């Protein structure tokens, strides 16, 4: 098995990084290119960019930011938010992203998962699931659907998803730990990697998640102290979870 991954998530709106707390109340924390390079140097295993303005406002995703990030970043990154067609996915992948993350659009038209996987491979398709009260939510977690979370995770896998990004709406922004029960339940049903998301408040929370799943998405814990990422990695390793060996750069 590959080593567990620590993945900072940058919420982007209008080309700037913003921080989401329970999906509302945004605060500008900077330039995506600069922050991406900084996290890469600090030992991030991968990055996720979510264009949070795209779905509610139906705006186009941020191709030029993707290209600028690809020119400086030597770790993989995923781009999500507003990917609604194979064309959207092509534009993002051909600008330098490794993967696209599908959310509402995949629920509305699950064949989109297969179409993108056929063209770029399953490893290029992440299906993001915002889960709460047993069902999938859309529109940044604000709208509940009637689709059961577990059934959707299985269907997404069957249609060609290469990874599931599973956000617990209940835990998101609370910093009281990941929803381990939900994460374990989804992971037990699928044979693709699962990224746990929502709730990271301490090294222990992250270590607990990485013991049961493949990767952990982190946001405010690292955005509030970007220089603390190497220390956070050491703390997680101190709790017995082996991460990839990194050399710290001055």
């Amino acid at each position, binding site marked *: 098995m590959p*080593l567990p991954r620590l993945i900072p998530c940058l919420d982007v709106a209008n080309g700037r990084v913003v921080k989401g707390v329970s999906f509302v109340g945004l605060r500008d924390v900077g330039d995506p290119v600069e922050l991406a390079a900084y996290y890469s140097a600090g030992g991030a295993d991968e990055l996720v960019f979510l264009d949070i303005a795209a779905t509610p406002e139906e705006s186009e995703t941020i191709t030029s930011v993707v290209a600028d990030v*690809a020119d400086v970043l030597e770790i993989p990154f995923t781009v999500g938010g507003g990917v609604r067609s194979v064309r959207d996915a092509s534009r993002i992948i*051909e600008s330098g*992203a*490794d993967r696209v993350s599908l959310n509402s659009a995949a629920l509305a038209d699950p064949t989109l998962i297969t179409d993108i996987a056929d063209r770029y491979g399953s*490893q290029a398709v992440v299906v993001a699931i915002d889960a709460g009260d047993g069902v999938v939510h859309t529109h940044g977690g604000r709208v509940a659907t009637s689709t059961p979370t577990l059934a959707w995770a299985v269907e997404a896998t069957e249609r060609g998803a290469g990874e599931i990004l599973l956000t617990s709406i209940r835990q998101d922004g609370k910093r009281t730990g990941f929803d381990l029960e939900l994460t374990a339940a989804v992971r037990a049903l699928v044979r*693709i990697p699962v990224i746990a998301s929502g709730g990271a408040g301490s090294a222990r929370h992250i270590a607990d998640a990485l013991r049961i799943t493949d990767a952990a998405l982190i946001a405010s814990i690292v955005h509030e102290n970007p220089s603390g990422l190497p220390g956070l990695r050491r703390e997680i390793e101190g709790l017995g979870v082996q991460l990839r060996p990194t050399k710290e750069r001055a």
Partner: protein
Amino acid sequence: MSDVVIVDYGAGNTRSVRAAITHVGKSSEVSADPWTIANAPYVVLPGVGSARSAMAHLDETGASTALRERFTANAPTLGICLGLQLALESSEEDGGVACLGLVPGNVVRLEAERVPRLGWAVVEPWGEAYYFAHSFVAQSPATIATSDGLSVAVQSGSFLGVQFHPEKSGDAGLEFLGQCLSLV
């Protein structure tokens, strides 16, 4: 001509490979032209798309012949991910595809606990962790390095193939790429 020619076969992302090559101080261009590919000081066959469409594209542009000419002339080529897989004799992907046949062996569907195999893993005997994202894997007597018991690097004559993505593997990847490109 640039130090490195990256083979264009239609789909996907050559931007990150170019950025990494620039980072290690070499010039690069993306080309599908057979003469350019055959005569480049160094060629990178990158890893994007599926085996069938990639081979169809390489055959159509004449790049496959150019890659075989380079191989015969002992000129260096680095295959990355799918680029490694295309150098073998055949692949199970897409119901079976005949590949370039530069390296003995075949490509089979990955049997692992989780597929795709995504993330950083240590490569032995090199002792460094690199980034992987694959659902197929080589089975080859030309294997020179492994990860989790899988063949992740093959060498045959002047062709070197790696299953991981050096352009996405941080400092370790840049160091690897720099060593490969020190030939030019």
